[in-house]
């Protein structure tokens, strides 16, 4: 009996094609019941696809799935739910205008066909959230919750349906460091209560800290299956990418020159503390990277968007090489040499239904030779797009695909390629490596240093403190819309900067 239940999930020879792309190439995978099993691999390796097949969201072309030792046919998510599977997707699957309770019960509502028993539903949601320490207001609307809270709703959703096997697709990509710590505590306690957990992540430190076993995928195939006790970060990186990967940033000291960007007393009024700016002044010089550390939601997003021209400031001025750019629209700013890598690539970075070629010219689409007086120059655009896709290793390298068909990391590479290619004087970078695999992180970091050394001024915002400290030459700390101090990234301690980020010290 105990033997039978050894594996909660087994996938055997599962294959899936999307058009020309072989997303899963006969993959096999076994997950011990009551364990935390990590799946890692580069962007586009096929991790999400494999899990979506297990969850019945996509149909496999061939292959077999066993749950608790029995072969099962999982045609749709309903089947998966009945078999005790629950999945938290990479992009949340929540209905924003509905309440927490409504989202959790959707599809498995208590009561009769004629009346949902909301009282029972609410009580059950409260009970579950207490039982697993997932504090959440059962009556709040999803659109009013932070991403961390939304994720808890997703987990509660699976628990409510009685999930014994939880699949989490990059659950930590959007969380603050504090939320990640809480999340891990929750996952460990779930495992200790006998649940089986499958987690996809790009962060090797998390894999090593949390998981019991690791499956590594590359190019649609499973290339490794190891016990976490025997794994090292370097070894995993090599398996994932197929070559040695530099896990640290290597750079020489900066040699800053003239000031490129000067921001004077920038303020933004807003009804909430989050989203306001208060008298922010800063300067970024040619050949340096200025990092902005801070817990997300303390004005970093607004600062970057104002400089990029995406929203107007209330007061203050912005100078590029000594000239005011306050009155220019985003396209004109871009043509002056301001590149922008936005934090939300779906909303600000790409037109998801347009092809890669069209996406590769956004912002420079009026410039010659890409465009003539009236018509776009399709051939030159295609040549340039092909070159970018090759240089920046966007996969699959087919410029006729819609941006939507790329995995998250490859979408990011496309944006980076487009923005870096304009020979920017100033680069505004927000969360450049969110959801991006280690090979691509190495690549993007190297590129940023290269551009710095070539004389670009770089303003970097990231929720990853490590990223800020290892890339930046100088670091400002923001809290509640103000710059609360400057630190030297080479000597500052994590405690000290952490205290500043939470308003403890100024």
């Amino acid at each position, binding site marked *: 009996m105990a033997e039978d239940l050894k594996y909660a999930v087994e996938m055997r020879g599962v294959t899936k094609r999307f058009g020309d792309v072989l997303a899963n190439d006969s993959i096999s995978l076994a997950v011990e019941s009551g364990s935390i099993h990590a799946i890692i691999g580069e962007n586009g390796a096929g991790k999400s696809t494999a899990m979506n097949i297990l969850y019945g969201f*996509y149909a496999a072309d061939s292959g077999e799935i066993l749950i608790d030792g029995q072969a099962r046919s999982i045609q*749709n*998510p309903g089947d998966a739910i009945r078999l005790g599977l629950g*999945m938290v997707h990479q992009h949340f699957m929540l209905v924003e205008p*509905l309440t927490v309770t409504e989202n959790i019960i959707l599809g*498995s509502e208590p009561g009769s066909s004629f009346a949902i028993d909301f009282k029972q539903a609410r009580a059950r949601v409260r009970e579950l959230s207490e039982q697993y320490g997932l504090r959440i207001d059962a009556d709040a609307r999803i659109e009013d919750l932070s991403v961390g809270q939304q994720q808890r709703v997703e987990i509660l959703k699976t628990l409510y349906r009685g999930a014994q096997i939880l699949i989490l697709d990059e659950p930590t990509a959007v969380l603050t460091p504090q939320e990640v710590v809480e999340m891990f505590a929750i996952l460990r306690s779930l495992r200790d209560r006998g649940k089986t957990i499958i987690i996809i992540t790009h962060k090797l430190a998390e894999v090593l800290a949390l998981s019991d076993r690791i499956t590594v995928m590359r190019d649609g195939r499973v290339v490794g299956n190891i016990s976490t006790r025997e794994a090292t970060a370097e070894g995993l990186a090599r398996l994932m990418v197929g070559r040695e990967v530099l896990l640290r940033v290597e750079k020489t000291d900066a040699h800053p020159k003239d000031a490129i960007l000067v921001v004077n007393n920038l303020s933004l009024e807003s009804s909430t503390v989050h989203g306001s700016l208060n008298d922010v002044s800063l300067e970024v010089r040619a050949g340096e990277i200025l990092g902005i550390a801070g817990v997300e939601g303390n004005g970093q997003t607004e600062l970057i968007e104002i400089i990029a021209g995406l929203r107007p400031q209330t007061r203050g001025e912005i100078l590029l090489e000594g000239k005011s750019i306050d009155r220019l629209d985003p396209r004109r700013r871009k043509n002056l040499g301001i590149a922008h890598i936005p934090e939300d690539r779906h909303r600000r970075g790409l037109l998801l239904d347009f092809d890669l070629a069209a996406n590769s010219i956004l912002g420079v689409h009026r410039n010659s030779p890409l465009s003539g007086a009236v018509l776009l120059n399709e051939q030159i655009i295609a040549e340039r797009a092909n070159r970018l896709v090759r240089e920046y290793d966007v996969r699959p390298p087919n410029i006729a695909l819609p941006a939507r068909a790329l995995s998250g990391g490859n979408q990011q590479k496309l944006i980076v390629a487009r923005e870096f290619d304009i020979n920017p004087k100033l680069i505004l970078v927000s969360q450049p490596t969110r959801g991006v695999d280690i090979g691509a992180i190495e690549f993007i970091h190297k590129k940023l240093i290269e551009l710095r050394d070539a004389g670009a001024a770089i303003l970097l915002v990231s929720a990853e403190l490590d990223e800020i400290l290892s890339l930046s030459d100088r670091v400002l700390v923001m809290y509640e819309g103000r710059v609360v101090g400057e630190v030297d990234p080479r000597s500052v301690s994590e405690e000290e900067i952490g205290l500043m980020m939470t308003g403890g010290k100024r």
Partner: protein
Amino acid sequence: MDITDILNLSLLASMVRLSTPLVLAALGGMYSERGGVINIALEGIMLAGAFTAAAVTARTANPWIGLVSAAIAGLLVAAIHAVATIQFKADQVVVGTAINILFLGVPALASGAMFGSTGSTPQLPREQTLPDWNIPGIDSIPILSQLFSGHKPIVYLAILMVPASWYVLYRTRFGLRLRAVGENPEAADTAGVSVARMRYAGVLMSGVLAGIGGAYLSIGQNSLFTRNMTAGRGFIALAALIFGKWHPVGASLACLLFGLAEAISIRMQGVVSIPVQFIQLIPYVLTMVVLAGFIGRATPPKAIGVPYVKEK
């Protein structure tokens, strides 16, 4: 002229009557659009319902059979819409427009074949149209009796459908799932809800309700079908739906407003010395003003108009 010639209790009673087809069509549209399918075909569905009701009643001499047939006709026309937009993922506005154009012509053709006249169906004797119902209890209360008694049964159906639709949308499984599908079909799908099934249900319900709304025109308010007798009411219902923020109560209140405009315009004809064509414009101008001033501020269901395709 005295202002009380226009503004009096019987004006409000006629507002209730004139709003009825609008309320039914708007509530129908709500079920479709809350599920994520734009239903611009309400006009064509109403025409199909109006014609079927009049034609079947003319043949059977029974308005109840005519009414049920109108509901079925609405259902069938909506089924064309549903199959094209949900099954074959055709553009919803294009399909709706095609249906509207089709049912501008089909009734004339059928009427010509059945009754030898393409312009209208035969005039029904009064006893073959839907009866007026007095509501016991209310018919003895002075003001209420004038407003809420002595109407055709479809008027009461429309009144009942308002709270019923609210209940269905916000208190039942069906309503929750329908709203989820209209906002975020992927989320509903991953929660084990069939997106296609919910959307079919929403569109088909819109057919039944708009079909009945059409029947009210031909065998309730009038006693025959004439060419294009809906005169844009399907579109006005759509406007009311937007103005009412896709909410059953809001949409119905908006319908009352449009019904009032129509009632006033009917009253004014012959009373004031403005050419009748201008007076008849009132409800349409009101629709445009309301939509122009309002349309940006109403947030539609997020997935509206987008066919659900998960593997591209």
